[in-house]
């Protein structure tokens, strides 16, 4: 057999095993996709989604552009390993094809320097390129070692703690490239076929070592190199390195609009196994930052879910604030996956569980605009009173859905995983909204807002948060504000900002009322107040510590008043603040111009 030596066996066996496992996994996951996802794929394949996905694969899977944005050095580390290795394979294959002719077997280009037929007159330009690429990958490996020791220099305070299979794969990976360098250098000492790096080292070896020793070491090194590759490939589909290939189909499927949902499904596997456990999600987590809880972050949640050992402690202990999700370089739907894991665990509601809601109607008033304060807003009556004044000033007739107490919106139940039970509450509320003939539904609670928008499918009813509604009134000239010189700072509630994308409306309103200064973390990077209903584990003292840290940041802005737009956030800030704290509706109500007409 041409270009064969028995040392290639570990490599070949590992490669075959790895591709067999990956193929099995992907085929199975795709086969198990629900039919609507399969339809979405077949609809998307021949559209512009495909070239866009190809470009995204290049920029994210190979170049890791998003990680560059976290930290350039960290980005370079990931890029040099992924893109460098990729080029080594491609250029190596071209070189082998040129030198050995068509039909080169797989191992022949991987171990090309070994099978290289002879010396090249005037040097081999490929060898130079290959040495450059090897140097690039090696620099990545050195950075990876460095990151283990000093992650802070790479923009990460904390790195992931890995499981055994990850450590095996990692160790093998760390050995692959230094072994390749050593093997090619020894080969160059014999054949003089290296570039500037391997060739240079080869000359050095040839000058100082006995040829018989060189030959012996050379054959051992090629064995070790092949064995390191084989080990890595065998461990790979079971380790975090599964992400290398899994991110590719994930990008395509995502472009075809396949998403994870309320219930677990096989697409989740693509997301879960596309996690490289880079640990970028750890630092943004306030449970880590303020409470020192270090084993519940998304990376650990995904890991535990993947290996089937998810505990309630990890699953429930998350604010679902979404700070990690916006930072995830792979764009994994972390909150969705966490909620559907919760759903998986507990959701067999008694069918009659919320039957008591039927026939209850505590609403009052009538109008095209419905106002749903939300449970928590009933405990911040300033907001209620302010909305009352704003509605009156705008001359709006309002149907008050829950001023005297009514049903919950259903989102808290959904967040705790009881999706089917929550659905029953939602259906009841939907009937209420329909029965009262409203065309606009305004709520003061971002938690309610999110569920009304995403789960209610309210046909013919526009759902608005009160910030959006107030801004609209201002823009339409139905109300006007007396501007003052108060300096405000604004806290973005998680469910309103990251959850619903409402960042500009409150800022525009505050800009009309006074001056606005931003805290250190704002908009999509804003802190969570700690009171999130998604977390059922942390106690009051822990909630308080998260709230205190975040309030300190708001007070440091030098503002005269802290403004937010969520009753839960307001309560959390009030507990810690020395400055006055207000819901945005209060600021508006206090500054309403009383028109002469």
């Amino acid at each position, binding site marked *: 057999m041409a270009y064969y030596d028995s040392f290639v066996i570990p490599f070949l066996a590992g490669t075959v095993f790895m591709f067999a496992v990956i193929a099995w996994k992907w085929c199975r996951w795709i086969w198990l996709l629900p039919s609507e996802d399969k339809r979405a794929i077949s609809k998307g394949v021949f559209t512009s989604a495909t070239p866009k996905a190809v470009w995204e694969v290049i920029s994210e899977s190979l170049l890791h552009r998003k990680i560059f944005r976290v930290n350039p050095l960290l980005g370079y580390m990931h890029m040099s390993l992924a893109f460098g290795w990729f080029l080594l394979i491609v250029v190596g294959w071209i070189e082998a094809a040129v030198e050995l002719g068509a039909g080169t077997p797989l191992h022949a280009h991987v171990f090309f320097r070994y099978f290289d037929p002879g010396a090249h007159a005037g040097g081999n330009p490929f060898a130079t390129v290959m040495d450059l690429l090897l140097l690039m990958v090696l620099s990545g490996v050195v950075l990876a070692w460095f990151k283990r020791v000093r992650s802070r220099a790479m923009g990460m305070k904390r790195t992931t703690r890995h499981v055994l299979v990850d450590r095996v794969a990692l160790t093998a990976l760390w050995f692959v490239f230094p072994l390749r360098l050593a093997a090619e250098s020894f080969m160059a000492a014999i054949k003089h076929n290296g570039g500037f790096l391997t060739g240079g080292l080869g000359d050095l070896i040839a000058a100082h070592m006995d040829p018989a020793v060189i030959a012996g070491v050379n054959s051992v090194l090629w064995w070790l190199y092949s064995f390191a590759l084989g080990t890595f490939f065998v461990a790979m589909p079971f380790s975090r390195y599964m992400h290398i290939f899994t991110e590719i189909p994930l990008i395509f499927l995502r472009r075809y609009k396949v998403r994870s949902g309320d219930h677990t499904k096989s697409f989740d596997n693509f997301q879960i196994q596309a996690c490289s456990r880079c640990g970028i999600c750890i630092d943004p987590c306030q449970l880590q930052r303020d409470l020192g809880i270090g084993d519940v972050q998304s990376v650990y949640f995904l890991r535990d879910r993947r290996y089937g050992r998810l505990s309630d402690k990890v699953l429930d202990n998350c604010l679902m604030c979404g700070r990690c999700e916006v930072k995830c370089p792979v764009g994994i739907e972390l909150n969705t996956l966490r909620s559907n894991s919760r759903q998986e665990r*507990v959701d067999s*509601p*008694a069918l009659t*569980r*919320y039957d*008591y*809601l039927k026939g*209850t109607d505590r609403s009052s008033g009538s109008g095209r605009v419905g106002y749903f304060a939300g*449970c*928590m807003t*009933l*405990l911040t009556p300033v907001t209620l009173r302010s909305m009352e004044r704003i509605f009156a000033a705008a001359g709006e007739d309002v149907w008050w859905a829950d001023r005297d*107490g*009514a*049903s*919950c919106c*259903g989102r*808290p*139940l959904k967040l*705790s995983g*009881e999706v089917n039970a929550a659905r029953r*509450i939602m259906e009841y509320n939907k009937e209420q909204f329909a029965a009262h003939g409203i065309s606009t539904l305004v709520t003061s609670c971002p938690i309610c807002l999110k569920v009304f928008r995403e789960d209610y499918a309210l046909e013919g009813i526009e759902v608005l948060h009160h910030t959006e509604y107030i801004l609209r009134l201002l823009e339409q000239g139905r109300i006007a504000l007396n501007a003052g010189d108060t300096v405000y700072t604004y806290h973005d509630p998680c469910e309103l900002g990251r959850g619903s994308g409402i960042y500009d409306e409150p800022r525009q309103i505050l800009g009309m009322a006074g001056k606005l200064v931003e805290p250190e973390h704002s908009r999509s990077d804003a802190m969570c107040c700690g*009171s999130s*209903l998604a977390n*059922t*584990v*942390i*106690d*009051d*003292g822990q909630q308080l510590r998260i709230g205190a840290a975040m309030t300190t940041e708001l007070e440091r802005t030098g503002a005269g008043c802290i403004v937010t737009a969520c009753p*839960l956030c307001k*309560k959390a800030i009030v507990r810690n603040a020395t400055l006055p704290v207000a819901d945005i509706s209060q600021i508006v109500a206090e500054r309403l111009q009383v028109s002469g007409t």
Partner: protein
Amino acid sequence: MPQFGFSISKPRAINLDTNDQVPAERLLQEVPELKTCIACGGCTATCTAGNLTDFNFRKMHTLVRRGEYREVYEQMDKCMLCGKCRLVCPRGINTRAVVIKIKRVLGDY
């Protein structure tokens, strides 16, 4: 559902000599601050479900702590987990965790 007087077979007294305290202890281990409840009733007063039904959260968790579990699970099912009770609780009790843990503990009781 209202309890009428004809269920005479049930003893009236809470019998702490015979009641099984294991589930109660498990609950208190998981939410230890529940021990600090001063029975102010704020949770029940503000309760979204409690204002529409006879659900009384304070009474239910007190029953559990006394080793009385009958009907507690069904009552807890009325809770919508809205979290108002946690917001008003002067003892800072994680009331939502209490609901969830009671259901988990009693679910396999």
